[in-house]
């Protein structure tokens, strides 16, 4: 009610000012008349008109209208009529559009007005409100003739979840035009207008059986950009409306004014949206996409020559805040030249939200031959229906890049800078990878070198050498002692010759016998005394033997035997036998051997 009284006060201020400016028309016989229908139906509207025949109103106090709802603020109208034969008449009306609140009989108290220092009163009016006929009971607000409603499909949403807000005009009146439309500014929302066919055109719609002209003024998809309570402001618009005058025709002229145009300010309802923040635990790579999406990621070929283009298509299909969805981060091998993607947005805001496809096409140009991995791409979004995060992943793909077709080099030809060597791009440094083995384990500090065994083994050849050396030396010395050897051999040779002599004796060969004995003795002595053959004569023999302390008898005996042998070789002897000579010789050799050791 306070809203209405505010309107009323405003109206009064304007009206008063207006009246003061008008010329003081004839003001005698002031009348204040109130008119209203005596009978109304619940849900219907009626007009309460206060009529003055003067414009000199100093103050006007309307009656208490608590039992009725003021649908439209009071309209003020001044008419000056110059009827036939009558004096010029001035008529000022205040018109209230009211709607009953409940059934029953109500009395509207008189209105008071101060005109020319006097207080005038209208008569009181009794109105009987009857119940509406069946099928027409609805809330009072829908019973208005003209109103705008804000229709919101959801009042509780997650941040980023789509809401469809529609302002719709309902009218039983005929609308002549509009001005001063004040649309809400949707603070805190990202909005997408929905294209409604025949936007703003009137259609007939039945509301509870009552025909209404309706028109969609505006419809849009709203995406709350922050959490908390977000308000959608009401829409206010000034409409020029043709209203049928609820009057009796009084004259022919009056019929022309059956419909009068009125300016009405219509204010819609507003709405408050509870925006919940997105729950925690968002996956990596979540970038604010809210809705329900599908995701595809495809390359047009997986085998290509260097410097040939590859198309990578990423498509995000679905319903949600597509305009605010970013492509997932892509990781290309550094050898690929990547151009900014061509983005095709094929989505439309509809009464279901914004749905369609966001397609990005990347052109990749591998510059070097090789085998490359395009890592898997993950796209994450929040599904407000399921109230959970969803992550969709594409599979990793590999691309085999062959050598460039122009054959200018070993596989790394660049279209722009042929045969230019590139700096190796280093992305980071890390330690080198572990060695696979074999570990070639050994016991710690287990060395053969430096051990006792090692030194023993090292010394062994030297020791062996030292051991062998003296033995070897002795043998060598013995080999080099010719005299000793001759002496040692002398006995053996003499015995050999004696045995030869014996053989000759047995055969009766006297000459051979004596020769053998002679040689045996001669050689024996020569060997023992180490005398060369040239010096071997009897005198020398005697001298040397005596010098070696051989008994003289033995020496004489030797000389005697030698003489005998010499003689026997040239002349036969008979006084001694060969046997005796042989024995004698053996005896001499034995004796000399004993002496000349």
């Amino acid at each position, binding site marked *: 009610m306070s809203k209405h009284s505010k309107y009323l006060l405003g109206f009064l201020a304007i009206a008063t000012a207006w009246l003061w400016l008008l010329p003081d028309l004839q003001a005698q016989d002031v009348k204040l008349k109130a008119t209203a229908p005596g009978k109304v139906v619940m849900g219907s509207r009626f007009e309460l008109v206060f009529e003055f025949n003067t414009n000199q109103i100093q103050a006007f106090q309307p009656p208490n209208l608590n039992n009725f709802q003021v649908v439209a603020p009071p309209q003020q109208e001044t008419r000056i009529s110059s009827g036939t034969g009558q004096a010029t008449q001035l008529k000022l009306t205040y018109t209230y559009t009211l709607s009953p609140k409940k059934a029953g009989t109500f009395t509207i108290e008189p209105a008071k007005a101060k005109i020319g220092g006097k207080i005038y009163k209208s008569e009181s009016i009794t109105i009987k409100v009857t119940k509406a006929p069946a099928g027409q009971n609805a809330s009072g607000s829908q019973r208005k003739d003209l109103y705008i409603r804000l229709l919101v499909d959801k009042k509780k949403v997650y941040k980023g979840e789509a809401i469809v807000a529609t302002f719709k005009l309902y009218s039983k009146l005929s609308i002549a035009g509009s001005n001063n439309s004040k649309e809400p500014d949707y603070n805190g929302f990202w909005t997408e207008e929905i294209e409604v066919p025949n936007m703003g055109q009137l259609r007939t719609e039945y509301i509870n059986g009552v025909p209404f002209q309706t028109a969609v003024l505006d419809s849009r998809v709203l995406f709350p950009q922050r959490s908390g309570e977000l308000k959608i402001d009401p829409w206010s618009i000034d409409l020029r409306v043709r209203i049928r005058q609820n009057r009796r025709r009084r004259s022919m002229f009056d019929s022309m004014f059956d419909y009068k145009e009125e300016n009405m300010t219509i204010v819609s309802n507003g709405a408050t949206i509870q925006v919940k923040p997105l729950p925690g635990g968002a996956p990596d790579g979540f970038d604010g996409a809210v809705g329900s999406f599908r995701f595809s990621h495809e390359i047009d070929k997986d085998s290509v020559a260097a410097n040939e283009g590859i198309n990578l298509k990423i498509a995000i299909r679905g319903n949600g805040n597509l305009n605010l969805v970013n492509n997932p981060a892509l990781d290309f091998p550094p050898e690929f030249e990547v151009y900014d993607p061509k983005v095709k947005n094929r989505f439309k805001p509809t009464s279901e939200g914004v749905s369609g496809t966001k397609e990005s096409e990347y052109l990749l140009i591998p510059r070097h031959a090789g085998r490359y991995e395009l890592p898997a791409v993950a796209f994450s979004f929040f599904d407000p229906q399921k109230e959970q995060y969803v992550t969709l992943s594409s599979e990793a793909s590999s691309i085999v890049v062959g050598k460039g077709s122009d054959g200018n080099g070993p596989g790394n030809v660049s279209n722009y800078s042929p045969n230019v060597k590139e700096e190796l791009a280093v992305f980071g*440094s890390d*330690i080198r990878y572990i060695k696979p083995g074999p*570990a070639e384990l050994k*016991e710690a500090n287990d060395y053969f070198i430096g051990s006792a065994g090692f030194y023993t083994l090292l010394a062994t*050849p030297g020791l062996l*050498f030292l051991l062998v050396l003296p033995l070897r030396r002795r043998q060598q010395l013995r080999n080099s002692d010719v005299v000793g050897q001759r002496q040692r051999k002398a006995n053996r040779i003499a015995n050999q010759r004696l045995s030869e002599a014996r053989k000759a004796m047995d055969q009766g060969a006297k000459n051979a016998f004596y020769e053998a004995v002679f040689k045996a003795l001669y050689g024996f002595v020569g060997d023992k005394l180490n005398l060369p053959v040239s010096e071997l004569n009897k005198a020398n023999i005697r001298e040397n033997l005596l010098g070696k302390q051989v008994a003289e008898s033995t020496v004489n005996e030797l000389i005697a035997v030698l003489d005998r042998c010499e003689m026997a070789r040239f002349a036969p002897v008979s006084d001694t036998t060969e046997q005796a000579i042989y024995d004698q010789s053996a005896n001499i050799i034995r004796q000399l051997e004993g002496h000349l050791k």
Partner: protein
Amino acid sequence: MKHCLLFFGLLMLVGQLLAENDSRSHYELSFDSANVHYNEGNYTEAIESYRAIVQAGYVSSTLYFNLGNAYFKTEELPSAILFYEKAQKMAPGDPDIAFNLQLAHSQTVDKIETLGDGTFSKWWLGVIHLLPADVWGGLAIAFMVFLVAGLFGFINTQKVAQKRLLLFLSSSALVLFGTFLWLGLQQHSYQTTIAEAIVFSPTVTIKSEPNAQGNQLFNLHEGTKVALLESVNGWYNIRLADGKTGWIQEQDLRMI
């Protein structure tokens, strides 16, 4: 009876050799499984497996290298450096070890200028590690044998030409014997001598004397390599690559 004992002795020797071989191949297998852990990113498990092999007394440059890598991945920089250094000590010429060690060193706090370029000592280390120490030793023994045989031949032959040739061969054998023995002993002593250590305490103050009262000279941070000069009562006299020396307590170090 005597033959029986000999037989049993031989049997035991063979058995021992086989057993040793067996446990070594067991650890080779656990080395492989540690590598698998590493590859899957389970660095902690990899470290455990590698360390079990070290604890069993088996070492190799590859093992130390992989262990160093695993420590590097778990961001235990001083341990990574320690094992890289141990690996490099066993295989001085390995480029992978040198690379990772350099990378690990570059992440330590202390920046220390190195005196000299160390080219000669690097070359020398390379030379003495051309062959394993025991191979050097075996070569030395072989040339000792050649030397002795040559000398023996020299003594025995009467011909002058032969004598001359044998003298030449023996003296060559002597030179080679000496060289190989020296190289082997050098490598042996390099491997068995602890001459360097890594600082393991996050920050440690180096003192001028081997006691707590000594003047504070400078601070070192974990991961820095120091050379050990002498030790007194649990304190080590250390020298940095830039020539600075000072005393540090043994508990702040881990020997390479």
